[in-house]
């Protein structure tokens, strides 16, 4: 049978957005079009708060579903078959799709929606007739209109659309609906996960990485580029800012007390990231810190790093265990890259006994050995920008 596919996109929380709903929907449609721009001939429209992606060739369906599963703001996807408005064709499509999905037993019901009022049958009549046709083709199914295990959906519009299942998507809010934030991205497991979690709430992400060549290698930088690309698969595009950090790290190493190295290094990172963030009109910084995971991530450590910035700092994995973070990293596809063994600048000069409970007066005294403002400005000025787009 000749047909093309349609994907019916079901949105999540956008329903709650009241007066702002058109803005959220427009943004989501834009993001969907961006994601599918390589698919020829498709069209995207919205009707009664459902988004329809039309004219997908059957061979492209799986690829299109995979792509849309990564678009934030989509709650679920229903791959539908588009046929002429003919009851025989609709029934055939429904039976075929049930068989393809392996649905041949249990209970079901048919939900019909007639948007095209010129169609001779009314919605309940469509449902009843298609239900009867399905039963005669697959007699092992039973009808249960109250608590069916499976639901067959039929929509009659300019064409007829049939679908039998929902594919869960990633959820969240459309990218671009909730501002922009700067993610401090190391080569590790946690920060890409933190970036993903914030991006999922509709926040556009810029990445800031600190590069300490020759103490860290070109491959460490490649790794961070790769991680940013994986995040860009979800967000569409990402700008990565690579900050030359060698001079600052070497100066801290030479001039500050051993125990303070880590905390002072973190404070420099935050200052630099905030400068870049302000320039990019970001509303917040994002880090992958989790309480107590390493020496600098104690309550006092976090306080000491927050003290140098005015912007809010989001730490979405703050309460998570390493294993929980790793599970998300696996799911979103960053884990394999994160575990490549190229050292990042966070571990290069780790002291043997870092201060886990730094006292602010001591930290500030130690920093007075350095011309903090000039060093920060210089690093920002020499920062390299790399623009990454999906794919």
């Amino acid at each position, binding site marked *: 049978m000749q047909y093309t596919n349609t994907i019916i996109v079901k949105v999540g929380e956008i329903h709650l957005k009241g007066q702002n709903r058109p803005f959220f929907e427009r943004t989501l449609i834009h993001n969907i079009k961006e994601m599918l721009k390589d698919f020829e001939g498709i069209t995207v429209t919205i009707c009664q708060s459902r988004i329809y992606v039309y004219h997908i060739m059957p061979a492209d369906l799986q690829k299109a579903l995979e792509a849309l599963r990564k678009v934030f703001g989509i709650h679920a996807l229903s791959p539908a078959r588009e046929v002429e408005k003919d009851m025989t064709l609709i029934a055939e499509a429904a039976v075929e799709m049930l068989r393809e999905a392996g649905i041949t037993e249990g209970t079901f019901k048919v939900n019909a929606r007639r948007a095209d009022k010129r169609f001779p049958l009314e919605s309940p009549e469509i449902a009843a007739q298609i239900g009867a046709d399905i039963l005669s083709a697959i007699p092992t199914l039973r009808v249960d209109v109250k608590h069916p295990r499976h639901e067959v959906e039929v929509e009659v519009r300019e064409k007829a659309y049939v679908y039998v299942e929902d594919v869960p998507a990633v959820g969240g809010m459309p990218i671009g609906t909730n501002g922009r934030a700067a993610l401090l991205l190391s080569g590790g497991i946690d920060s890409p996960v933190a970036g993903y979690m914030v991006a999922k709430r509709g926040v556009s992400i810029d990445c800031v990485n600190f590069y300490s060549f020759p*103490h*860290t290698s070109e491959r460490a930088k490649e790794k961070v580029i790769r991680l940013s690309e994986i995040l860009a698969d979800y967000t569409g595009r990402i700008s990565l800012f690579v900050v030359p950090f060698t001079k600052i790290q*070497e100066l801290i190493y030479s001039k500050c007390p051993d125990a303070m190295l880590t905390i002072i290094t973190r404070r420099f990172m935050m200052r630099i990231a905030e400068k870049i963030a302000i320039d990019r009109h970001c509303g917040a910084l994002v880090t992958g810190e989790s309480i107590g995971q390493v020496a600098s991530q104690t309550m006092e450590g976090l306080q000491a790093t927050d003290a140098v910035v005015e912007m809010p700092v989001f730490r979405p994995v703050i309460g998570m265990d390493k294993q929980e973070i790793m599970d998300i990293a696996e799911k979103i596809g960053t884990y394999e890259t994160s575990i490549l063994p190229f050292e990042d600048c966070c571990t*290069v000069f780790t002291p043997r006994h870092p201060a886990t409970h730094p006292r602010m007066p001591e930290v500030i005294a130690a920093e007075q050995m350095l011309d903090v403002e000039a060093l920060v400005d210089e690093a920002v000025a020499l920062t390299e920008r790399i623009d990454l787009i999906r794919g």
Partner: protein
Amino acid sequence: MIYLDNSATTRAFDSVAETVREQMLERYFNASAPYSAALENERLFLQARRTVSESLHAFAEEIFFTSGGTESDNTALLGTMAAAGEKRHLIISAAEHPAVYDTALQLQNRGYALCVVPVEKDGTVSPAKLAELVTKDTALVSIMHVNNEMGAVNDLAALSAAVKAVNPQTVFHSDGVQAYLRMEFPKDHKNIDMYSVSAHKIHGPKGMGALYVRRGTRVKPLLYGGGQQDNMRSGTLNMPGILGMAAAVDELRRQNDFIAGISEIKAALAERLLAIPDTLLIGEMQGSAPHILGVAFKDIQAQVLQNALEERGIIIGKGSACSSRSSKISRVQEVLEIPKNLAAGTIRISLGAFNTMDEVEPTARIMEETVQRLRKFRRK
């Protein structure tokens, strides 16, 4: 740029690139086809095989072209054990390249008995210790000719003789990838049954190598198919690779002073580098390969030194380049018991036909400056 990582790979000779180009664009005919254009290629193939066989004092039919050192080693180990019937014992040395080492572990997983002979402090294998491990069930012994990390040279004539004295039936294989044409092939090679070589380490194409198999040695092929190369290595002849390899062999053998030249560069570099305080020579100068110089710097991370030198136009190697993605201390360093604060700072300089004496001074000077600078940032 000063390129000192020739044991990882080399720049091809111009003549090699020209040969490959000609084969790809002009003489692209399948050497096994019946038409005359192809016949010419068959002649070129036979000539190339002769070139390689002569370099190993072998008969032409004893040379089989492969996709490189790894395939040659795999064929030697897997092929010999597959043909060995009841005999299920093999011996390798502790310093073998992963192409031998990991293949031997695979055989062990399949139920073969594996013995690993340790190496001495100088990185070589002792013939007496090796002979002690040989039994009547020993089907294969595989000992590398030159160690890829430190340049230690094994005495293949003595080792193979010691093996055959205990069990004349045991097949003796050597991985010659780091030795080929940079060391004389042993004049007394009557006990060496198989020898692996690679083209890209001698300024030939990558993905190209050969395995010498002495007449009468029982070995099963790794690949089945069209039956090329006397059924030993099926697959359409890789003519660009084979002729490119032969061109490299030709050119290197024509350079009479090649080995003396790189030996001189190595000696000059060693003298300058070992004058840097807290620096250790890995292995020995005496009797080591002329192109490999292993040096360990105290309180230095080899990776950081490599990065810093590259920034100044000098490319060096560290550990085994094939496994540079792993940050562990290498198996060979462990075997040699190099102190930990030195092992992390072990680099490998390896020379090739394009290196000159003029490179010694700037290399030594820049390395000394860089080492001194980096030592200020010792890991705590």
